[in-house]
């Protein structure tokens, strides 16, 4: 399980960085999204990595930490996903506007600016 997680973080991060180097805006936005997925999984893996354990304690018991998943990284990832969603949506709007105004999807827009 750890190996699968590590590989997916690596593949997502690598693809994201590669897409960020591309000159088209659509590739940029997909690259940023992939990179943020990689980071989210990375945060998730930071709270140890127990499989099939609940993050919430049973009511009325103190609970043994070893038997539970750490809920904080899950909360952090949730926050990061929400913020990432908002920024991606906003960025998409800006990108579409730029596409409309410049008539192209190159990141430098109008070439030979100044």
């Amino acid at each position, binding site marked *: 399980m750890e190996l699968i997680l590590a590989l997916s973080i690596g593949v997502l991060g690598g693809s994201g960085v590669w897409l960020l180097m591309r000159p088209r805006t659509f590739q940029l936005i997909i690259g*940023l999204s992939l990179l943020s997925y990689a980071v989210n999984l990375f945060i998730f893996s930071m709270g140890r990595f127990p499989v099939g354990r609940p993050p919430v304690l049973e009511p009325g018991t103190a609970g043994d930490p070893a038997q539970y998943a750490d809920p904080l990284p899950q909360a952090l990832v949730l926050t990061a996903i929400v913020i990432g969603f908002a920024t991606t949506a906003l960025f998409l709007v800006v990108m579409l506007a*730029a596409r409309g105004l410049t008539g192209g999807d190159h*990141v430098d827009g109008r070439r030979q600016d100044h």
Partner: protein
Amino acid sequence: MLLAQAVLWPVAIPLATAALAACCWQRLAAQRAISAAGVLLMFAATLLLLWQVRAEGVQAVQFGGWAAPFGVSFVADRFSAAMAAITGLMAFATWLFGQADIRRREERAGFHPLFHGMLAGVNGAFLTGDIFNLYVWFEVMLITAMGLLVIGRTRAQLDGVLKYAVLNLFSTLIFLMAVALLYGVAGTLNMADLAVVLPQAGPSLTLTISALLLLCGFGIKAGYFPLFFWLPASYHTASITVAAIFAGLLTKVGVYACFRVFTLIFTVEGSGLREILAVMAACTMLFGVFGAAVQWDVRRILSFHIVSQIGYMLLGLAVATPAALAGGIFYIIHHIVVKANLFLLAGAIHRASGTFDLRQSGGLMRRSPLLAALFLVPALSLGGIPPLSGFWAKFMVIDASFRGGQGWLAAVALVTGILTLYSMTKIWMEAFWKDPLMPRPTARAVPAPMLAAIALLAAVTVAIGLQAEPFVAYAQSAAQALVDPSDYIAAVLGAVPAEGGAMAEPRP
């Protein structure tokens, strides 16, 4: 209630203002009134916070009734209180300037909610005591800043915002990874708690990587040497009110975060960071100032100078003696006032001569001598001419780097100072001194609110210069608190349970 929660008001007021202004989307008059009230209230709240921190020491509030390190902390020590107060001043000055500069079209596009949302993000970043929250405030700042950048809906702005957005989103992702690593090692995200836990954990490769990631993430935000290219590519496209507040505050949030993290959580001393920071500082200064030398657009010159000035602040952090940190803090305060003022002046020059291109403008000395006189104050201050604020700021960091055994950094700083003066002379010669090539039809008189805002900031610059002592003393005590953060840690972790369980007690 009012005083006990003083840390929260500088964040809560702009947030509420933004929400209220957004509710009155169609009614511009109501938005303007709400915005004016919000700016004044926030300025008052930041001054109150500054006064309270001076009188009573570090202020800390735990959110939601959970004691630190479990709840979200808001903390104001001397450094962050000063940053919040200067944010209040900047908000007031740019709001005043905006009275004459912001067009109805921009107001209709949501200028007021975005402006206050950005201020909330900036103040939140200054006052939060939790490193994950710092990320959230960064994102608040980024989202609203993107909106403000494209508010004019021109091609150049959309082009600028693409670079701004991509690199800043990338930087927050890097920052987030660093936060995850910190959590993995320490199991906490409260900065005061991290300062306690990490020394027990001892040095490790994970922590080194985390520190470097933080440096990269904040470095992109702040515009440090290899990472500053987005800044001159985007700032000059914004409308001038927006550019002024960006130039004054946004990069400095990155610098503030660096100062906070690399004194409280990591140390520059003995971790190998000093060499990296020193080289970055020197290159930031030089590349910024050389970049400015070849530009002819006032806003682009000023954008490159933001970068070179950031180098001086980083120099303070690289040397990391109390005197150097005090110099860095003093430099940040001085720079925010002066740089925002120069951008406002660029707007006034544009209004008076009809162009941002220095080659096309000229003759302002004769046409508006008052503007010329007002330009001299921040321009000479930026160049470091006594007795203005820039002289003391440069004197403090350069003196500290000589004493800290980093003489070469001091030499670079001195050379950069001379080249800065060259750029300022260029603006003076071209825009004010020389005769205009031809009379421009678009040139108009500079409206009174613009002059008032510029004069206010110029007066602050002169005041800091002539009455430097209280400011220097404040910066020194703030730096002392950075070097020895025990008060900060005690205020966040210790004081709350000691006050009695009233806040920590779960409510029935």
